[in-house]
């Protein structure tokens, strides 16, 4: 790791940059997975008194507005050159944090549907601005070599904290935790953004060395190229599969109370630990293998996870007397492993498909389209399923089928590409055969 080199050299601004980036990314993601995804459901259904389907529709709207705001601000960042200006990005992030702090404090007091809607629009815009800004900090703080491990660290911290604390999924609990966490963040980020600190100047030019992503060497990746659209489509599939499956699981008391909302703290600790293990494994794989291997692992693990869930449900439906039993913990454990895998991939992928001139747009389109638009669509599909009274087993079977299909399609497309490459290469000579064998080495680019 390059981090150890910096520590040996005593390059402390760079070392601090690692810590700052992991903290910002982990805190931002923690805010997203707890306060926004879980807290809003509680706020909308319990405090505002809206039906669950209406709240789900608002969540879909949140995803759509966030996507639009992220893409708009990402493009603006690249066109104005803000993506290269660390201080400008820190100021933008400080502004986002200020808005989110106010929104966080106000959330538990929202009582009527109009205020709820306004709150969601404001939160969506602030999050939409926050995503490209946070992701573009990668080029200032994280060398290309270490991105897999740094992404793993952010994933591990966010999910471990998210599973261990708070245990109560209520907007009040989330609001208290976030408000307390945001105060030191506001102080530090405010100082960095508004004061003339040496730290910012020391790392301000790092984007010249760190800026060109792993997959942009030797040629830069264009937004409309297959090199960008391919991973974008795959990541869209990952988020869609996860969201569609988890939306139903989280609404099934028997499944969620035996895992993510278990009264037993050791279950939370176990799931948090599995997230850490999964993130570390994903970091190692991302650093040493081509990204497609990680995609294959993610789809394969999702397929296996939903296979486990549907197996239990089929067995329970075959023997109805068993339906009240506690579902096995192996299912959420595999789910946690998979989620850590794809989150690590998501954190590292978009900066690695970008340069300092494109990171605003690429990370906004990547996170916005793959992350938020897919969530919007899966929410819509889940609502339709609910309206059509699709059973739990049918719902999860469909998600399982989708994961399997994506897994097989990815495998076939990789194999097809290899066949196409060999076919274009013409008759095999000894030298070419040796080169071909090297190309297919597991660590190489397929």
């Amino acid at each position, binding site marked *: 790791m390059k981090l150890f080199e910096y520590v040996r050299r005593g390059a402390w601004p760079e070392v601090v940059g690692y810590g700052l980036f992991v903290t910002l990314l982990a805190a931002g993601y923690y805010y997203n997975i707890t306060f926004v995804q879980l807290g809003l459901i509680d706020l909308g259904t319990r405090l505002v008194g809206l039906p669950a389907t209406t709240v789900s529709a608002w969540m879909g709207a949140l995803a759509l507005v966030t996507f639009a705001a992220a893409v708009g601000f990402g493009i603006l960042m690249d066109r104005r050159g803000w993506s290269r200006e660390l201080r400008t990005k820190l100021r933008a992030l400080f502004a986002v944090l200020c808005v989110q702090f106010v929104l966080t404090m106000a959330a538990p007091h929202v009582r009527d549907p109009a205020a709820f809607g306004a709150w969601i629009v404001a939160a969506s815009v602030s999050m939409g601005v926050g995503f490209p800004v946070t992701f573009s900090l990668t080029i200032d703080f994280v060398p290309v*070599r270490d991105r897999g491990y740094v992404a793993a660290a952010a994933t591990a911290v966010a999910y471990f904290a998210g599973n261990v604390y708070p245990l109560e999924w209520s907007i009040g609990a989330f609001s208290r935790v976030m408000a307390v966490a945001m105060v030191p963040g506001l102080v530090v980020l405010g100082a960095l953004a508004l004061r003339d600190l040496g730290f910012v100047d020391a790392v301000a030019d790092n984007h010249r060395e760190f800026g060109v992503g792993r997959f942009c060497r030797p040629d830069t990746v264009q937004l409309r190229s297959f090199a960008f659209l391919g991973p974008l489509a795959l990541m869209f599939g990952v988020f869609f599969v996860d969201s569609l499956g988890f939306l139903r699981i989280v609404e099934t008391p028997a499944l969620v109370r035996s895992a993510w909302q278990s009264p037993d703290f050791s279950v939370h600790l176990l799931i948090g630990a599995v997230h850490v293990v999964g993130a570390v*494994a994903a970091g*190692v794989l991302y*650093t040493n293998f*081509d990204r497609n291997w990680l995609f294959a692992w993610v789809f394969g*693990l999702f397929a296996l996870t939903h296979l486990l869930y549907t197996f239990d449900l089929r*067995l329970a439906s075959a023997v109805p007397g*068993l339906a009240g039993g*506690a579902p096995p913990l192996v299912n959420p454990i595999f789910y946690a492993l998979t989620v850590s895998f794809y989150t690590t991939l998501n954190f590292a992928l978009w900066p690695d498909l970008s340069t300092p001139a494109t990171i605003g747009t690429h990370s906004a389109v990547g996170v916005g389209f793959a992350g938020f638009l897919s969530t919007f669509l899966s929410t819509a599909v889940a609502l339709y399923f609910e309206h059509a009274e699709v059973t739990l087993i049918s719902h999860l079977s469909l998600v399982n089928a989708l994961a399997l299909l994506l897994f097989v399609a990815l495998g076939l497309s990789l194999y097809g590409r290899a066949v196409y490459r060999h076919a274009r290469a013409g008759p095999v000579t000894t030298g070419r055969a040796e080169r071909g064998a090297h190309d297919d080495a597991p660590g190489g680019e397929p």
Partner: protein
Amino acid sequence: MNPIELALSLVLAVLLIGAFGGEPATLQVVADGSHEFESAPDALVVAGGTATVPANESVDGSVYAVGGSLAVDGTVEGDVVQVGANVSVGSGGAVVGTLRVLAGDPTVADGASVERVERLEPTATDRSPVTALTVRLVQWLFVAALAAGFARRRPDLLDNVAAAATDHPIVSGVVGALTGATALALVVFMALTLVLIPVSLLGVLAGIVCVAYAYAVFGYLLGRRLPVDRPDLAAAAGSVLFVAALDLLGRVPLLGGTLQLALTAVGVGAVLVSYLGFSRFEPVELPA
């Protein structure tokens, strides 16, 4: 009762029925609650809850008790097979067939009639030191023969796997651990479908071969440091030393088992990332 526990119990019951030559036309399962049986199908499986054959009642078929409790106060015309469940035969109860005990301790009251009791429960103490040593020797010889064979005919395969294990232990360990965990889950769930039991057994066999291959590679690495000129003999000797050392390691509480697992994960991962040794593993090149 947990569905997975029930499924495992059912698999066990089906295997038992097959093992004891039963071909039942109908089968009934008790998974939960208390049930009394005055008559039963050809086979009754008690996987959970409590099943009772009341006094003065008779059950024609055999009863397989793999979980929960079975109380025989009446008559069972067939066999009773006990695997871990609680089985009691009351003072007025009778088992006309054989009471086969694979695991557990049945309670047979005075005055109960049991035609024959067969204890098939295997225990670790049953194995004499000579038998245990013989089994261990066969394992060592298998790994040694594998290492020697590869060292003589295809040392390049061992070199490639060894390079992955020594140059990239973390990558190999991660791949080995991940593959091991997911493959284990897959094999178990394939077995639960019953139809895929043969595929599941093949998977287990492939796993064993993979582990043996990994141990042979570690033996090969160890053999290179021994004062033996012939590479095949050195690999064989190294393998025996490695497996014996691994066995000794297992006797250290907690740490020993963890190290055993870690070494196995690294070895299996190295076998996989090097495509069974047919390719030299090279991580992707990243900017300095």
